[in-house]
């Protein structure tokens, strides 16, 4: 986990701060974005090792951002965890259809989120049933 970069996109400053603190304490390097527009603009830059993405963002939702991410060649293989208060089955299906690798509903357990992050960093984003290593 040394030096692995996680991008957190959440418009609630307290949740973003909480995730930043906890993940940095776990040894990750964390980048925070608080708007969907910033997240879309970020797709022009170097991809992180993993993204934690809120769904309910103002102006552009997490599902739309995720679809754009999967269409961006350099970001296609980045594992994405959706972190959201929308826990209905339809929302989870929509999240997986959009290309999410995992779906965590708020309220959530921090240790469980960290375990999911560690698992995805080991296995990478799955495409067509095969595990693909994220870009170095």
């Amino acid at each position: 986990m040394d030096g692995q970069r996680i991008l957190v996109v959440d418009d609630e400053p307290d949740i973003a701060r909480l995730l930043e603190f906890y993940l940095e304490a776990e040894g990750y390097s964390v980048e925070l974005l608080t708007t969907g527009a910033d997240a879309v603009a970020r797709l022009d830059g170097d991809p992180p090792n993993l993204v934690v993405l809120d769904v309910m963002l103002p102006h552009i939702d997490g599902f739309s951002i995720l679809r754009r991410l999967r269409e961006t060649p350099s970001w296609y293989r980045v594992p994405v965890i959706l972190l959201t208060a929308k826990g209905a089955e339809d929302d989870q299906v929509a999240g997986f259809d959009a290309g999410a690798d995992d779906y965590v509903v708020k309220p959530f357990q921090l240790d469980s989120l960290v375990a999911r992050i560690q698992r995805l960093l080991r296995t990478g984003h799955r495409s067509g049933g095969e595990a693909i290593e994220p870009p170095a």
Partner: protein
Amino acid sequence: MIELADESLIVRLAIVVGLGALAFTVVFLLGAFASRGVVTRRTRRRNHVEQTWAPYILSGLREDPGPPPRLRRRDAPTVIAQWLRLSTPLQGAGADRLQHLARRSGLNAAAQRVLERGRVQEQLVSAVFLGRQRDLRSVKALVDLTDDRQLVVRAEAARALVSIDPAAGVRLTAPLLARWSDCHPALAVAVLDRAPAQLAATAVAAEATNAQDPAVQARLMEVLAAFPSAPAAAAARTLLETRSDPELVSRCLSVLRELRDPADSALVRRYVHHSTPFVRVQAVTALGRLQVPGDEWCLYAALSDRDWWVRHRAAEGLTAWRRLPAATLAFMRAVHPDPYGRDALEQAASEGPGR
């Protein structure tokens, strides 16, 4: 001379008015700057307090962060609100650690003081916090708040009591919800939502059955529709046998609709020809959900009702009827004697699942 005197009077008047306007403007601007200064100082103070406490709270997620920062009385609402924002998205070990840390830091005691003496907004945040903390020592203060003249404060205090001890909280809250005529049923449901559904339904059903005022009973039955259960059904059936108030009857029918017990079909059918349209609407909607064989013809007849909503609900019920063959439905659409009934079926068929 008279003209000169008039002119000097006008000039003096103009000077007085001008000076008055100038003075008013100066006072107004000074007041605006002063209040802006107060707001700015408050915002800076709040930011400073949050920045002081944030590392302490966040460190507490992983380990013992040591002694807490000093908590001044006037800063307690800020810290409590911050604590809630950070802990609400969490559950499990992280949430438990923060709960324990809040107690140790004196926040529970501070929240109780705010509950007793704070402004409305501060009282609300403290009530939510104490409910989340499940602090038994705050029960008395919360019970006192259920007498507050503001509904939002009463409701939040009641909700916190239900969080702290669901069984005792529901027993205490259900009679209050019956008394609070200004409490919308949706708010009542929110007050009870932290309690097990069966517990809430039993308590509310008892209140509904024992109340004398049909308006109170109707309101409580609307709450019970959110807790479909045996106690809710029993209350609905009892009230349908003993009461005739149309609003109450329609609420009881909506409870039976949610429960979908085929045994209620005969009871519901009695209301398909009620004189009040919204009662007939609830009756045909309930029959459409119960789907007892034979009742589809009751809905077919209701397609001739003089009220549009009754016809529409009857048509929806027929379109969604699981054991009704498509050919039978098509036959109904073709031969129903009432053109409005045929229209209703046509519309429901075009809106519903493909038949």
